[in-house]
């Protein structure tokens, strides 16, 4: 599902180029649940952005869900992203729309037939246990509920791969546990998961394969 081969990413920092990722190689198979761990600034977010083609690698090869990301044309990026579900630390919900409308919005812009939108959106909300809050606005949600809504939005289009960038970073331990349970639930239904977190205790609790990044270098791949 994911294959990185000797991937480097340099950012321009004044006259110098600063390495964010250095010679990173790994694969994540279809149906696998992998954790990308590391301290803040280790390169986790940069790596995820390379995977969904929000950034271009400076060197190396990347394959995601059958797409050669390094050779991807601009017009092909939406095709790649349609096969991905992406969740961020901040839920990125649209503040002027209800929870239901946030989910339906995704289906609408992807051209899903009108009569399929409502059942699919409610199915996704049910999967994250948020059906009763469908008509609430983001400002009326707790952080845990907002992250559940973001998860519902990510899975509503049945992605092959879920990329989660610090989805529990803003949550207390109990809420974080609930979100992780939901992600495991999504994974158990066949979606490949790559979860980035700086919370090493959380990573250890999950007892899954862990890829550890330190200063842009992959230092550990175990589990």
């Amino acid at each position: 599902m994911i294959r990185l081969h000797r991937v480097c990413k340099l950012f321009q920092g004044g006259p110098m180029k600063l390495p964010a990722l250095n010679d990173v190689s790994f694969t994540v198979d279809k149906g696998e649940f992998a954790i990308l761990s590391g301290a803040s600034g280790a390169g986790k977010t940069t790596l995820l952005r390379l995977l969904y083609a929000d950034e271009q690698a400076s060197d190396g090869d990347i394959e995601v869900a059958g797409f050669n990301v390094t050779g991807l044309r601009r017009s092909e990026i939406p095709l790649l992203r349609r096969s991905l579900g992406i969740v961020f630390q901040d839920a990125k919900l649209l503040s002027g729309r209800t929870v239901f409308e946030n989910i339906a919005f995704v289906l609408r812009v992807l051209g899903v037939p009108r009569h399929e939108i409502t059942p699919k959106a409610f199915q996704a909300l049910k999967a994250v246990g948020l059906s009763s809050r469908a008509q609430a606005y983001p400002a009326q949600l707790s952080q845990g509920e907002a992250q559940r809504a973001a998860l519902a939005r990510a899975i509503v289009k049945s992605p092959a791969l879920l990329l989660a960038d610090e989805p529990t970073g803003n949550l207390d331990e109990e809420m974080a546990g609930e979100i992780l349970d939901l992600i495991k639930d999504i994974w158990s239904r066949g979606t490949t998961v790559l979860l980035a977190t700086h919370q090493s205790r959380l990573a250890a609790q999950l007892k899954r394969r862990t890829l550890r990044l330190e200063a842009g270098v992959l230092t550990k791949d175990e589990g």
Partner: protein
Amino acid sequence: MDLRRAGRVGVSAILLITLSLTALGGFWLLSLNLGRAVAQWRDRVRVVVFLKDEPTPSALTDLTRRVEALDGVHRVRYVSKAEALSSLRESLGAQAGVVDHLPRNPLPASLEVTPAEGATTPEATRDLAAKLAALPETEEVQGGAEWVEGLARWQRLFQMVGLAVGAVLALAAILTVTTATTLVLHVRRAETEIMRLVGASETVVRIPQLLQGMVQGLLGAVVALGLLEVTYAVGAPRLEPLLQLTLGLARAVFLSLPQILFLIVGGAILGGLGGLLARGRAVA
């Protein structure tokens, strides 16, 4: 549609498109009516050959045949001394009695030569006049197309000025629509970010901006046409006597349906272009 979010800049964009299309349409209207006058006067171009003596019937037949054989001549009409005097009497109206006090008819006989189609340019009528002046029977040659061409030059000038002013204002309108749409894009950036992240095609992301620009353009075009129509309805009845006197035009006409459609489509294209450019700036 996010026109409300564009606020004053959106209204400015509509106003600039209105100004641009009103200028373009206004000059077009002037040029259109001048063009009608030019066409009408081109049809009326005559070269008059005043004769030294009134010809005998056989000499007239011979002269007419020779003139008709010249290049660029469509028709020749003989005006006798008596007919010329009768015309003068008619044109004097109430003062026609003056003519009766003349000791003899002072008016010369003449040939009224109508140039052929395509030979009404100043050069062609000058050539024709020179040939007619060379005839032994000719006393003097008058007439030509110089002043008609002068009118045509004014028409072309109006067209050029209209296009230039319209183009400058159109450019300003595009830039304003671009700014208005960029502001809306800024307000909607969270929405477009999500759209791109979930894999919406660029077309789906762009369409709202394109539509917003087009709606601004359409509104501008409709307001511009309304202004032109009101100006025409109020101004034309007042100007028509002057037009009749100076240009011989009985009435001023308004823009034709294709011209109106051109302005409406032009407005939509201007606005759409502004919307698309805004997308480019936002993406960059």
